[in-house]
């Protein structure tokens, strides 16, 4: 071992080898997406280190939570109870609407909607790349998380899974400059692409014609086109529309609904055909999905 490293010292040949190796890795990883497995192993090894790095902040959070007054907790409980009651009441109509929707679809012989499975994940607050907007979550290949999977917050779409380790996964937020998501205007059905701008509170809406039926305040929901993402989840609200002086597309900006600045929980979504097997058997990009 030591020998190898010493030989490397200062050798221009060894430098060339390492540079080429880096470039090769870069191409294989970010262009060809071949190295998820390698990344997964290293992610597994990094887990204890990440735990250690978040230990002070989680201890702090634990300590400050244990000092909450009884009154505070009582209030919290009462508020959550009320919220739960309201949500349950809303769900009553939801179930009947879903049944109705199914019947109508069957009557129209339309394709069956996909069933969805949900899993709650927690965010591990470690550092991420300087401009990249990613968060690490505490679910990985062992929970059948896969690359490209949709990640939601309670308010709307948060982003999607880009890397998977055994117990952890990385989620790219909507606002990342390299994130794009097919959406449609909930009111008019007009389709477009929502792309991140690098800023937490602004998305760009691409490919929306000048004469498209879209207004300020319109809700954008996922269109489900391109697969991978479930349809109908709220993404953003249209903020400003400026018809382009030249070119066919308007320049539209939208404000994401999910709290991208400070996401606390992440909900992962699996879509499955009602006839297809459970997600345990669905395809997994990382071969390590045999726990449970």
């Amino acid at each position, binding site marked *: 071992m030591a020998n190898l490293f010493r030989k490397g010292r200062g050798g221009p040949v060894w430098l060339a080898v390492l540079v080429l190796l*880096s470039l090769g*890795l870069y191409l294989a990883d970010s262009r060809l997406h071949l190295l998820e497995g390698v990344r997964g192993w290293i992610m597994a090894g990094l887990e204890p280190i990440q735990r250690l790095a978040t230990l002070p902040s989680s201890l702090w959070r634990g300590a400050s939570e244990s000092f909450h007054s009884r009154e505070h907790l009582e209030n919290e409980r009462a508020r959550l109870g009320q919220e739960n009651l309201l949500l349950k009441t809303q769900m009553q109509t939801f179930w009947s609407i879903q049944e109705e929707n199914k019947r109508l679809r069957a009557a129209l012989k339309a394709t069956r909607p996909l069933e969805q499975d949900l899993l709650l994940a927690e965010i591990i607050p470690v550092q991420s790349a300087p401009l990249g907007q990613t968060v690490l979550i505490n679910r990985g290949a062992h929970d059948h998380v896969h690359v490209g999977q949709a990640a939601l917050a309670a308010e709307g779409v948060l982003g999607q899974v880009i890397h998977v380790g055994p117990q952890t996964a990385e989620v790219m937020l909507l606002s990342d400059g390299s994130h794009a998501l097919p959406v449609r205007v909930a009111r008019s059905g007009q389709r477009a692409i929502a792309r991140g701008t690098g800023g937490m509170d602004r998305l760009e809406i691409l490919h929306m014609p000048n004469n498209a039926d879209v207004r300020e305040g319109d809700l954008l929901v996922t269109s489900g086109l391109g697969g991978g993402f479930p349809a109908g989840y709220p993404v953003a609200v249209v903020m400003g529309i400026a018809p382009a002086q030249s070119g066919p597309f308007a320049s539209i900006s939208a404000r994401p609904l999910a709290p991208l600045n400070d996401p606390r929980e992440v909900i992962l979504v699996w879509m499955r055909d009602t006839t297809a097997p459970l997600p345990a058997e669905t395809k997994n990009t990382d071969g390590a999905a045999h726990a449970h």
Partner: protein
Amino acid sequence: MRTDPAAWLIIPSTLLAALVLELFPWPDLLDPWQPPWLLLTVLFWAIRRPDTVGMSIAWIAGLILDVALGSPLGTHALLFTLATTMTLVAQRMLLALSMIQQALWVAFLTLLQQAFLLLMDGHASAEKLMLMSLAPALSALLAWPVINIALMNPQRRLERGR
């Protein structure tokens, strides 16, 4: 001169500690000001123990950081290797310089690395680029004495072991 076994215990554990520091979450406002702990530690050992910590260790450290930060594999690996190579070339001179002068050198390398990372990402505006590459360079300047003090003891132990 053979590398003594103690070096293979002490140096990796300092690198590991630097990685933990690197991953330590900072408040959003101070985020760009986080010093590149791992790079600084690698460079420290490259100056003090060039026969042990060279390009290969730098490359491995960079690769691990790539995975930890979720950047494309190979980016930090490449930049760590290049920064270490430049440091090794100037190693004799750097060793003779004062801590302040060394700090300027590592700040310069941090600036280069950061600017390259941001340019590669391609989504940064000009002023963001300035802030986000200058801030870590300045904090590297301040962190270098901290690293030197923190690693003085492990380094002494290594010297004695020789």
